[in-house]
C-alpha cells in the first residue's frame, strides 16, 4: 500500500466518524424538538393563556399564572441586569483598560459564568429568602440577575474591545469628551454585539429552574406581587411534569413548548444580529 492510499483511507475513516458523530448530536436535538413539538402543540389551547392553574381534573386550567410570573421575574432581572452588565463591561473596556481591578473583575466574572446555578439559588436563599422569612418573586429575580450579569458584562467588554481604537482616537481628535466618544461612537459600533449579548443572557436565565426553586418557589394561582412566592414556567413545568395527573402533564408539555420556543427565538434573533453585523 502506498503512502497516498493509506492517507486517503485514513482521511475517509476520520471523515466518516466525525460526520456520524455530528449526525448523532443533531439527531438528539431534532428528537427533543420533535417530541416537544408533537406533545406541546397537542397540549396548546387558548385556555392555557386565559386560565390560571387548577386542581387536577378541572377543565379550565391553564398557565396564565406561570406565564405572567415568568415575565415578571425575568423582566425584573433584565431591567436590573442589563444596565449593570453594560456599565460594568464599559468600565472594563473603556476605563479599566489594563488596571488590576479590571483584570480581577474579568477573572471573577468568568468563574461566575460557570458557577452551577443551583449554588446561586442557595446563596440567594441564604441572604434574601431566609431573612425575609418567605419565598418571593424578587428573590427569584435577584438570583437570575446574578446569573445574567457575567454574561452581559463579558459580551459587552468583548464587543467594545472589537471597536478599533482608531475610531475612538478619531472622535477624540475632533474634540469629543470621553463619555461622548463612548456613547456616540463606541456603543454605536458595538450595537449589534451588545444586543446579542443581552438576548443570549436573557435566553440563558429564562430557562433556569434550580435557582427559582429556592427563591420564587411556586404559586398555583395568578399573583403579581413580587413580594410573594410566584409561579414561573420552569418550576410549574417541573411540578406538572412530575405529577401523576394526565391533564397536569399536558400542561407541563405546553409549558415546555412555550419556553423552548421563546428561548429558541431569542437565540435565533441573537445570531441574526451578529450575522447582520458581519455582513457589513
Amino acid at each position, binding site marked *: 500500500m502506498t503512502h497516498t492510499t493509506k492517507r486517503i483511507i485514513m482521511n475517509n475513516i476520520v471523515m466518516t466518524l466525525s460526520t456520524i458523530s455530528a449526525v448523532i448530536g443533531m439527531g438528539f436535538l431534532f428528537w427533543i424538538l420533535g417530541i416537544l413539538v408533537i406533545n406541546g402543540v397537542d397540549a396548546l389551547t387558548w385556555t392555557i393563556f386565559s386560565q390560571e392553574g387548577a386542581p387536577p381534573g378541572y377543565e379550565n386550567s391553564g398557565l396564565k399564572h406561570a406565564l405572567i410570573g415568568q415575565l415578571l421575574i425575568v423582566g425584573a432581572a433584565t431591567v436590573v441586569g442589563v444596565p449593570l452588565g453594560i456599565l460594568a463591561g464599559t468600565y472594563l473596556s473603556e476605563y479599566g483598560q489594563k488596571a488590576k481591578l479590571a483584570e480581577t473583575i474579568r477573572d471573577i466574572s468568568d468563574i461566575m459564568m460557570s458557577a452551577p446555578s443551583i449554588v446561586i439559588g442557595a446563596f440567594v436563599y441564604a441572604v434574601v429568602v431566609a431573612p425575609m422569612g418567605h419565598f418571593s418573586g424578587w428573590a427569584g429575580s435577584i438570583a437570575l440577575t446574578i446569573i445574567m450579569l457575567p454574561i452581559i458584562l463579558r459580551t459587552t467588554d468583548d464587543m467594545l474591545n472589537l471597536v*478599533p481604537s*482608531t475610531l*475612538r*482616537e478619531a472622535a*477624540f*481628535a*475632533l*474634540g*469629543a469628551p470621553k463619555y461622548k466618544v463612548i456613547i*456616540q461612537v463606541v456603543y454605536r459600533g458595538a450595537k449589534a454585539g451588545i444586543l446579542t449579548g443581552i438576548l443570549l443572557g436573557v435566553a440563558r436565565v429564562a430557562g433556569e429552574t434550580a435557582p427559582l426553586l429556592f427563591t420564587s418557589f411556586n404559586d398555583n394561582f395568578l399573583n403579581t406581587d413580587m413580594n410573594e412566592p410566584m409561579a414561573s414556567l420552569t418550576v410549574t413545568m417541573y411540578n406538572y411534569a412530575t405529577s401523576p395527573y394526565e391533564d397536569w402533564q399536558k400542561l407541563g408539555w405546553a409549558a415546555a413548548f412555550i419556553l423552548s420556543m421563546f428561548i429558541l427565538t431569542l437565540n435565533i434573533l441573537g445570531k441574526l444580529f451578529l450575522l447582520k453585523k458581519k455582513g457589513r
Partner: protein
Amino acid sequence: MATIINIKEESVLDVKDFQFTYAGNDAPSVNKTTMPIAKNSITALIGPSGCGKTTLLRCFNRMHDLYPDNRYDGEILFKGRNILQAKEDLINLRIQIGMIFQKPTAFPMSIFDNIAYGMRLQGMKNKTELQDRVEKALKDAAIWKEVKDRLKADANGLSGGQQQRLCIARAIAVEPEVLLFDEPTSALDPISTAGIEELVVELKDRVSIIIVTHNMQQAARVSDYTGFMYLGDLIELGKTEDMFVTPKEKLTEEYITGKFG
C-alpha cells in the same frame, strides 16, 4: 548635529527642546527636538519605520494623553502658549488641531452625521447652518458630487478613498488651524492616493499641514518643507526641493538615495 533651516514664513507651531517618552520606557522615542512648523505650508515628516515620526505627530494634538503615563518634556508653542502644560484644554486644542489617520475612520453613522459630528460637539444645532457647513466641507474635500444623493446612507458603505475624503471633510468642517495627516494614503490605491494628495495641496491656503509619510515621492510631490527623522532624532529639516536634491546631512542623503530604510 541636526541641520534645521530657518523658515521664511511665520511659524504656526514651534517645537522647542522637545522630548517624548512612552509609558514604561526609559529612553525617549523622540529625542531633544527643535523645529518650526511653517504656517499655511505643508511640512512632511519622513524616515524609516520606528523613527518616531508618527509619535511626534501625535504629540501636536496630545493624542498620547489617551493612554496613561506617557511623558512629554520641553515645549510645543502654539499661539504663544505651551500646549504641553497640564492645564491645556485638550478638547479645545483638538478642535484647532485636527487629525487624519492611516486607515479611514468613518463613524458608524450616516455620511451627514459623520461630517456634522464635530460641529454638533461644539453645540451647533441650527439645521440649515449645519446643512450648509456639511455641504461646504464635502465640496472642499471634493466628495460632494459622489455623496450628495445619499447623505443619509451609512458612511461605512463608501470606498476606502471616499471614506478618507469623508474624514478630511469631517476634520475641516470644524475649521481647524492645523491638520495632522498620519500616512493618510498608505491604505489606499494609487488613484485615491492622487486624489488625496491633490486635496492636501489645495487645503494649505486655509490650514497648516503636517504629514507623516512612508513614501518619499509623496513628500516630494506635496510638501514645502521636509523633516527627516532617524531613531528618534530629527536629522534634518529643509525646503523640500533642497532636501531631495542637495541634502546637508549624510544620513539624509543615504536614506533618500535608498541606501537604507
